[in-house]
């Protein structure tokens, strides 16, 4: 099957082995533009590894990745972010703890405001005007995600849930086309989960950003996603609207077995 070049993200035959262990087993997946696609499955089913292989953090054993019609297979992580505008979050390392909330956002926006390598060595007025614009945008984004009051706090000192919101905000600073979220709601209290869902929906609606969300919280997934894909042992075992998927017997079994 040829890749879908109109899709925001198109995977063909993605596979990743760790020695004799097959983490991802020949996955084909197309995520259309503007979709919010959930990706779930038991622990060790290959969700995070799939993200790693799509974003260049790990080299896939086999398979190809296309983003908006461009093949990005084998690209380094920073290049996939810069040129294909596919950005991801992490489960654990969420924010740069030693920097302020605002500086985290400025850092993430730098690739937009100072696109060339040499441009990042800008001093004087070029530096100040670029950074001033980024601070203004950071203010807007913080208002949007509801962290405006934390602007000058050290990112390491705000709560874990707030760090996850901040991480979401940093990704918006980078003007992405596709956002891959790795467990954005794990360890986050219900109020902030509500806010996270609202933020994802708004970014999707207002900026047309495509989302792939790895998450175990099935209630949140039902509320959020247009589509739910279930992985088990590195393979896709279900792919439909969330309401239908959660009633599939093999999905229920995979979860119980997992």
């Amino acid at each position, binding site marked *: 099957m040829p890749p879908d070049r109109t899709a925001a993200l198109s995977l063909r035959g993605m596979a990743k082995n760790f020695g004799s262990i097959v983490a991802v087993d020949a996955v084909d997946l197309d995520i259309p533009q503007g979709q919010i696609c959930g990706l779930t499955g038991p622990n060790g089913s290959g969700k995070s590894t799939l993200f790693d292989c799509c*974003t260049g*953090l790990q080299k896939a054993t086999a398979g190809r990745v296309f983003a908006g019609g461009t093949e990005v297979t084998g690209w*380094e*992580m*920073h*290049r996939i*972010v*810069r040129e294909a505008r596919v*950005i*991801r*979050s*992490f489960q654990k*390392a969420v*924010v*740069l*703890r*030693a*920097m302020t909330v605002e*500086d985290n956002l*400025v*850092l*993430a926006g*730098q*690739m937009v*405001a*100072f696109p060339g*390598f040499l*441009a*990042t*060595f*800008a*001093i*004087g007025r070029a*530096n100040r005007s*670029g*950074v001033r614009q980024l601070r203004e945008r950071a203010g807007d984004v913080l208002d949007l995600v509801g962290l405006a009051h934390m602007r*000058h706090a050290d990112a390491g000192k705000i709560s874990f849930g707030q760090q996850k919101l901040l991480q979401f905000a*940093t990704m918006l600073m*980078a003007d992405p086309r596709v956002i891959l979220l790795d467990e954005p709601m794990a360890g986050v209290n219900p109020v902030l989960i509500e806010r996270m869902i609202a933020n994802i929906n708004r970014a999707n609606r207002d900026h047309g950003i495509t989302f792939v969300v790895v998450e175990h919280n099935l209630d949140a997934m039902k509320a959020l996603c247009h589509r739910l894909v279930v992985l088990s042992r590195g393979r896709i075992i279900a792919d439909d609207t969330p309401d239908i998927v959660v009633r599939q017997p093999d999905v229920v079994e995979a979860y119980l077995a997992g």
Partner: protein
Amino acid sequence: MGTDRGLRAAGFAGMLAFLLAAPGFLGEYQVHALIVSLTFLLPALGLNLILGYAGMLSFAQMAFFGIGAYVSALMAMRWGTPFWLNLCAASLVAGIVAVPLGFPALRLRRYSFVMCTLGFAVIAQTLAKNWVSLTRGDLGLSNVPRPVLGLWSSGLEIRSVTQYYYLALALGVIAVLAFLALVSSPAGRYMIAIREDETLAASLGAPTWRYRMAAFVLSAMFAGCGGSFYVHYYTVISPTIFDPYYGNTLLVIVLGGGVGTLGGVVAGSFIFVALSEVLRVAPDIRMIAYGLLLIVVVFGCPEGLLPLLMRRLRTWRRADAT
């Protein structure tokens, strides 16, 4: 935060005023000690860049310092080139040499990187000792011309200690300003991000390898400048410059002053060089006392002197406010 910045500006202004006036009330020997401090400041800034900002401990700093010194000395002795040209060439050659070294070294992380840079320092010394036709081996190069401030061969020749001092101070100020511009640029912010979490930095679009290379090359360029001034001041250079003692002094300045801070490294250059000089009153126990004092510093303020001072100041201010 704003008051911290004001405090920092005031600290630097006060220090600069003191340094500008220093030859007026200090003896020649003390001024010489200040020159030594300023000479160490340049490679220390380089080490601070690569260790404090990009998060990599490099023992190659003194190798680049030595390369800068030899390049400067050879140019001045063979071709009679002016000081400014020697300085630029020393910095440039050190930076250029760093590129091919960076290719293998920057593939490594943490301890492997440290070991690799240690290897460079050893190789540099061996080359300086054995490439006799160029370096005269262990004899070293002597009678290196004094710096001449002028477009080519004519101009003001720097002779007196005071003149040397002001030249060193000018270089130090320029280096500090360059360092400040660098670390407050977007590239500096990327370097901090890479130090804190390389994967996260890459996920935000930072080409991490390029910035680590940039930090390595720029740190070598700072060191090369220092070496150039050094050789024109002492007018001799030999392979002993690659001895671990000098490299260790740099580490003490950066770690003891406050790694990742500018003020800490500037203060560290003066404090630790001065300390070493003051202890000359008791030559028998000088190095033992120096070592003991370092241990005290490490226990008293593991992050370095400046971060400790800043925290104290903040606590006092908070106490005043309540």
